C-alpha cells in the first residue's frame, strides 16, 4: 500500500493493535452503526478484521473497504465493551489517514474535510469571519433562498440552527482572569481551552465556563495563542495537519499546569496528543487536560448553583464516557443543582450521530442514529436535555426541533452558574 516513508500513519503502525481482537463479538451490540445497519462489515469486529486484512496485504482494492470505515462514527463505544482492550480509535484513525493519503476523498466531502476543516474551521479568525458572513446572509434571508435553490444540501440546512448574533458570538477575553470580589480564591490557576465551534455557536457555554470557574474561586488563564485541537482532522484522516495544531497548543499552554475544556470531542483529542505527536511533550500535555466537569467534581463546588426546578436528562457524549471515562462527574454536579430532577435515558452512552462532522458526511446514517437518540431522550419526559459537547448539542437540538417537541439542549456548565447578584 502506498505511503510516504516519513509518515508515521501507516497501517503497519496499527497492525499490532488489530491482533488484540479475538473475534468474540461483544462489541457488536454497542456499535450504533451495527445497530442501525445490521452488517458485519459495519461493526467494530468487522472493521478491525478488514483493517487487519489491509495491513496483511490481503485487501486487493483498499478503497473497496473504505465505505465501511468511513461509516464508523469513531464513538469508541466498542472500546468500552471490549474485554480484550482493543484500542479501536487508534487503529481506525491511523488506517483512515493511510487510506486518505493514498486516495483523497473526492467531491464536496473532500472539499469539506480538506479545505473547510483546515482553512476555515482550524483558523479562528476565518471561522469568525465565516460566521459573520453567514449571519449577514441569514438576516438578509439568503439562507432561505439558498435552501430553496438547493445551494446547500437539505440535510445541512436541517441540521444547522440559526447563526447566533454577534453579541452571542463574541470571543472570551484572553489573558488572566481573577475571581470577582466576594469570592474566596482557591489559589488554584487553570487554563481554559476555548475550542473552535463552541465560541461562534455556543459563546454562552464558554462564558458560563469562565464564570463558573471564577465563581468557584479558580484563577482562569485564557491563552491568546491557542487554537483548534485538531480532532476533526484526525477523524478525517489528516493527522499531519492535526499535528501542526497540536504542536501549537502544546506551546500555547506551556506555562499552565491544568488545561480545562468544555468540549468532550476536543478534550479526548487533547488527552491523546501523546499518541498523535508521539512525543513526551505530547504525553505530558495530555496528562494536564481535564474536562471541566471532571475538574469541578474532583475539586468540589464552592458556589451553589442557581435553583432550576426542571426535569433534566443527561446524555453522555461518546468522547467523554467512552473516550475519557468521565461518566459520574457530570451527573454528580447536576445533582447539586437545587430543584433539578435528574433522570436517565435508556442507552445514554449510545452516540447521537453527531460525531464531529459525521452528520454532514453520512447524513442518512446520522439521521437514523439521531432519531433513536431523541426517541429515548423524549421517553424520559425530561424538559431539558443536558450534555457536554457542542456537536451533540447541535445534533440533539436539530432532532428535537424536527420532532415537533423541542426542548432546550444545554451544557452541564450552564446549569452550574450561581444566582446572579441582585442588581
Amino acid at each position: 500500500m502506498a505511503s510516504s516513508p516519513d509518515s508515521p500513519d501507516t497501517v503497519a503502525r496499527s497492525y499490532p493493535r488489530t491482533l488484540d481482537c479475538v473475534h468474540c463479538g461483544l462489541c457488536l451490540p454497542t456499535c450504533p452503526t451495527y445497530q442501525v445497519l445490521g452488517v458485519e462489515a459495519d461493526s467494530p469486529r468487522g472493521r478491525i478484521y478488514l483493517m487487519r486484512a489491509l495491513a496483511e496485504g490481503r485487501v486487493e482494492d483498499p478503497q473497496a473497504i473504505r465505505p465501511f470505515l468511513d461509516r464508523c462514527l469513531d464513538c469508541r463505544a466498542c472500546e468500552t465493551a471490549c474485554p480484550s482492550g482493543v484500542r479501536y480509535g487508534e487503529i481506525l484513525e491511523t488506517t483512515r489517514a493511510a487510506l486518505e493519503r493514498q486516495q483523497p476523498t473526492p467531491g464536496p466531502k473532500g472539499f469539506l474535510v480538506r479545505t473547510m476543516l483546515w482553512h476555515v474551521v482550524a483558523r479562528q479568525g476565518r471561522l469568525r469571519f465565516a460566521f459573520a458572513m453567514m449571519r449577514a446572509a441569514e438576516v438578509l434571508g439568503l439562507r432561505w433562498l439558498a435552501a430553496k435553490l438547493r445551494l446547500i444540501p437539505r440535510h445541512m440546512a436541517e441540521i444547522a440552527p440559526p447563526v447566533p448574533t454577534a453579541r452571542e458570538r463574541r470571543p472570551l477575553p484572553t489573558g488572566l482572569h481573577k475571581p470577582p470580589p466576594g469570592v474566596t480564591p482557591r489559589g488554584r490557576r487553570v487554563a481554559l481551552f476555548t475550542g473552535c465551534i463552541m465560541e461562534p455557536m455556543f459563546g454562552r457555554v464558554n462564558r458560563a465556563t469562565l464564570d463558573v470557574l471564577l465563581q468557584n474561586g479558580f484563577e482562569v488563564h485564557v491563552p491568546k495563542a491557542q487554537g483548534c485541537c485538531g480532532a476533526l482532522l484526525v477523524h478525517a484522516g489528516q493527522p499531519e495537519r492535526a499535528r501542526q495544531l497540536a504542536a501549537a497548543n502544546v506551546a500555547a499552554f506551556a506555562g499552565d499546569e491544568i488545561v480545562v475544556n468544555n468540549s468532550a470531542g476536543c478534550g479526548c483529542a487533547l488527552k491523546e496528543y501523546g499518541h498523535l505527536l508521539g512525543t513526551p511533550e505530547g504525553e505530558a500535555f495530555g496528562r494536564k487536560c481535564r474536562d471541566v466537569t471532571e475538574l469541578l467534581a474532583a475539586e468540589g463546588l464552592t458556589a451553589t448553583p442557581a435553583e432550576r426546578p426542571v426535569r433534566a436528562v443527561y446524555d453522555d457524549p461518546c468522547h467523554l464516557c467512552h473516550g475519557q471515562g468521565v461518566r459520574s462527574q457530570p451527573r454528580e454536579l447536576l445533582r447539586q443543582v437545587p430543584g433539578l430532577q435528574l433522570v436517565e435515558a435508556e442507552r445514554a452512552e449510545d452516540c447521537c450521530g453527531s460525531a464531529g462532522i459525521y452528520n454532514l458526511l453520512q447524513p442518512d446514517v446520522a439521521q437514523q442514529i439521531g432519531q433513536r437518540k431523541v426517541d429515548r431522550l423524549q421517553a424520559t419526559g425530561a424538559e431539558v436535555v443536558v450534555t457536554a459537547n457542542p456537536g451533540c448539542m447541535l445534533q440533539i437540538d436539530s432532532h428535537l426541533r424536527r420532532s415537533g417537541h423541542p426542548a432546550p439542549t444545554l451544557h452541564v456548565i450552564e446549569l452550574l452558574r450561581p444566582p446572579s447578584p441582585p442588581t
Partner: protein
Amino acid sequence: MPSPGAIAPLHARLAAALGQQRLLVSPDALLAWECDGFTVHKSRPGAVVLAETTEHVQTALRILNDAKVPFVPRGAGTCLSGGPTAGADAVVIDCARMRRVLHVSTEDLYAVVQPGVVNLDLTTAVTCHGLHYAPDPSSQSVCTIGGNLAENSGGPHCFKYGMTRDHILGALVVLPDGSLARLGSPAGSRAPQGLDVAGLFCGSEGTFGIATEITVRLSRNAQEVRTLLAAFADMGAACRSVGDILAAGLVPAALEILDQATIRAVEASVYRAGYPEDAAAVLLVELDGAREVVAEDALEVREMFARNGALRIEEAADAAERKRLWKGRKGAFGAMGRINTDLYVLDGVVPRTRLEQALAGIAAIGEKHGMLITNVFHAGDGNLHPNISFDGRDAEQTRRTVAAGHEILQLCVDLGGSISGEHGIGSEKLDHVPMMFDAADLDVMARVRAVFDPDGRCNPGKVLPNRSACAEVAKWPQMIAKVLDVEGPR
C-alpha cells in the same frame, strides 16, 4: 457442485430480486465474513445476502436452488465451531437484520421472533412483564435466537432450565428449495401434533434450512435470586463443592467455575468483577425460587463452601452486584485476547464426577504441546471450555493448538463424555465426530439431513462429513488431518 465462478452470474439476478443494497459481492468487503468466533477456519464466501424478511430468504434460496448453488445461514457470527463460515462457492444468507420481535404473549408465555433478534434483547423486551428467555449463552448480548436454534445453544442457566431445545415451540422454516414449512406451534410440545420436527430442526446447525420466524417459550422471573461466589486455593476443592451441592439434592440455577488464569485475564479487562486473583478457582453458584427455600439453600451452600476450605465467600447484595459477578464470567472468552492473538474455545463434556480427572488431563496435554490452556466451565453439567491461547499467524503454534484440542476431545470421550456440549460440530469437529459415532450412526443422520436438503447445498461441509468434496469447507478435515499428521477423513 458448482465452482466458485458459478455465483458471479447470479449477482444480477439476486440484486434485481432483492435490491442492490441487500447484496454484497466485493471480495474485499466479504473478508469480514471470513470466520465466526472460531478463527482457525477461514474462508471468504462468494456473496452475502442481507435478508430482512421471510420473502427475502425465500427469494434468495429459490434463485440459488435454480443454479444449485450452496448457501450458509448466519446470525451474529458468534458461533465457536465455524458454523456460519462459507466456502467461496457458497452464498451467506445473513439474518442479522431480521431483528423484529413479532409477537409476545404474556399470558401463554411465548414470543414469536425473527431469527436475528439478539438473545438478550428478547429478555429486555419482556422484562417489564416479569418474564425472560431462559437460555443464556455467554455471548447472549450479541448472539441471535436463530443461531441459538441452529446450535441448540446452552448457557450457565441451562443446568436448571434446559438447553435451547427445551424453549423452542415452533418455527417457520424456509427449506433449501425456497419452500416454506411450519414446524411445531405455540401450543408447544404438550400438544399432540405428530413428529417433533421442530425438535429435530433444533441443533441441526443450519443444515436443514433457515428459520425465519421462531416461537420460543418465555419464563417467569423467580421470586428470589441469590448469587454466591466462593474462592478456593485449589481446583479440586471447587469441583468437590459442586459435587456436594448436587449430592445434597440442591438444584442451583447455575454452577460455574473459572480457573486462575481466566480470573486474571478477566480482572485485567473492562469486565473486571472483583474475583480474588490469588484464588486457584472461583465457583459461582446462583440459586433461585421461592424466598424461604432459596434462603435455606444459600445457608447450606455456604456450609459446603466452608467445609471444602473456601478462602472467601461473597454474596451479591443486589441486582447490580449480581450483574457484576456475572459480568466477569460472560466476558471471559473475549478477555483471553489479552493473552495471545487468537483463542480456540473448546467445548467438551465429561461426567461431572470426572471433572478433576479431566482438568488434570487437560493440563498435561497443554504441557505436552507447550500451549497455555485456561478453563472456564459449566461445572453442574460437566461441560468444559478449555481455552487455548495461540498466535494463528504461526503455523507451528496452530498445529499444536489443533493437536491439543484433538487430544482433549478424545480425553472427554474416553472419560465417558462427548465432543460437544453446546457449541456444535460445525466445521471444527468434523474430524472428531467418528470418536463418538460409527458409520451406521452417521448414515442415519445423513439420511435425516437429506430429507430437508436432498442436494447437500444447505451449509455444506458442516456437522457431517460432506458427500461433495469440491466445496472448500470440505477440505478442512484434510487440512486438520494434514497438520495433525494423521489419517485423512473417513
